[in-house]
């Protein structure tokens, strides 16, 4: 019976990823009229599955095996608290990163139960959280500069046509990363604890991400789509593709990083090309505060609960 707790938590987190992250991936495309919502959700589901099957292994290794040796109690506490925090943050509209919450929860409950935490692995993860938005910043900056020298020289209607195609490619890349990085972070601990085998959990995880996208993503997409189309799709592509490439790069290294933070890095990179004044420093300060707050909160809650339960 206790084994069902991590499964239920995983399902809730996967559902949350589907309802929120579809907008990260395909909100721009839907808002820009490149693809219809139904097709977008289906495409998102397919690429999430493809991402976890083809490239989820390394991130799962890092989170489920290298960081600490998970057992049922650690898994139950950390994933339940993560699910609770993810749901609460969605409800209260606080931008908490699923990755950070899961890593914070795992290390918190692990530390409290006396399990050895691989500090080198933890250091690498935290370092990648710090470096990844900067890498996305430079990727988006370089991409925008490159587009100015190549794409901008084409005729207006050709640019418009090409943008439609590359926006879709960029959305697919983010969807793929959602599977290869985000879903892998959720499933890694469950798989390496021996509770389930890989393929069924991949299929089940991708299914619940898809279900979240089908049932709850439309309202988020509407908001993001309408918000983003007010910006120009040219900059939107550079920011999104810069972020997508950055997440893919870190996925190759097996590092669980947040797509949202990378997109913020990407947007700042594009803003930098247009002038420092366009970068909203207040928003960046807010992101930094959240960046520290999310894993710390998850760590403290799991640590306290685990300590209380052990005594």
């Amino acid at each position, binding site marked *: 019976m206790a084994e069902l707790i991590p499964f239920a938590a995983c399902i809730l987190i996967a559902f949350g990823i589907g309802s929120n992250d579809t907008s990260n991936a395909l909100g721009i495309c839907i*808002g*820009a*009229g*490149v693809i219809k919502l139904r097709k977008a959700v289906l495409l998102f589901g397919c690429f999430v599955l493809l991402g976890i099957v083809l490239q989820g292994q390394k991130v799962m290794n890092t989170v489920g095996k290298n960081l600490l040796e998970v057992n049922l109690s650690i898994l139950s506490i950390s994933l339940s608290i993560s699910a609770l925090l993810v749901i609460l943050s969605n409800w209260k509209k606080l931008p908490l990163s699923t990755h950070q919450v899961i890593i914070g929860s795992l290390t918190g409950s692990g530390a409290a139960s006396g399990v050895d935490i691989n500090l080198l692995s933890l250091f690498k993860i935290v370092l990648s959280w710090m470096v990844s938005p900067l890498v996305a910043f430079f990727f988006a900056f370089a991409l925008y500069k490159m587009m*100015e020298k190549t794409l*901008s*020289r*084409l*005729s*207006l*209607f*050709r*640019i*418009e*046509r*090409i*943008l*439609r*195609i590359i926006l879709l490619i960029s959305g697919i890349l983010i969807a793929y990363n959602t599977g290869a990085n985000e879903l892998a972070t959720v499933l890694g601990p469950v798989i390496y604890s021996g509770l389930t085998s890989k393929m069924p959990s991949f299929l089940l995880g991708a299914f619940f991400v898809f279900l979240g996208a089908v049932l709850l993503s439309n309202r988020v997409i509407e908001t993001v789509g309408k918000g983003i*189309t007010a910006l*120009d*799709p*040219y900059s939107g592509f550079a920011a999104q593709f810069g972020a997508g490439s950055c997440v893919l790069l870190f996925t190759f290294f097996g590092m669980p990083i947040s797509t949202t933070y990378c997109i913020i890095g990407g947007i700042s990179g594009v803003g930098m090309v247009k002038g420092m004044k366009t970068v909203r420093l207040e928003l960046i300060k807010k992101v930094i505060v959240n960046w520290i707050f999310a894993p710390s909160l998850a760590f403290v809650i799991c640590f306290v609960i685990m300590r209380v339960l052990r005594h």
Partner: protein
Amino acid sequence: MLEKVFFGGKTEQRVIENIKKHIKILCSASDCFRKALEEREKDLMLCVPDLEREGDTIRREIISTIYEGAFLPFLRPNICRFVEIVDEALDVLEDAAREFEYLDAKLDEEIEDDCIKIADINLKMCEMLLLAFETLLSREDIREKTLAIRIYEKKIDEIKFDSLNKLRGKGVKDFWAGKMISDFISHLTEVSDVIEDASDYLYILNVSLR
């Protein structure tokens, strides 16, 4: 297939072709207006309202095709606005043609010469607008064309103020005769202002995705 992917779908092509047709109608109406003015033929001026109606039909078709989903939503408002401005130029030209029909007396020769000059420059501006729009389909720089339109508009302004000065020295039969001539010149010179607005919008459209 590749052609469709990289060079635009059917709806986009339809919009582009219709915009070209719309501007060509403006050119034809301007040409027709100039000929009617040169030949002092009021019946010939009737082609302007006919062309304006044709322009209205094309404008409706363009807007409905855009609402069917042609182009990225980011571009749609600017394209629609451009089409509406071109249509406004046709409306103003039609107003000038109607005023010409109502003119009782013959235009003073000096004023008539100025009006023909203005009508001729209006036609050149329309042709330049068409060239500027076609530039959006190629790699060429649109700035030269928009600059030429601005120069033409400045020329018309100079002729307009010169004509108004001449008009002040001339006597008129009654209030309505004076109002007709004044309105005719106002509408005729307003066409260039609207075409300049359209070219500005083309420029905005061109830089909006870069």
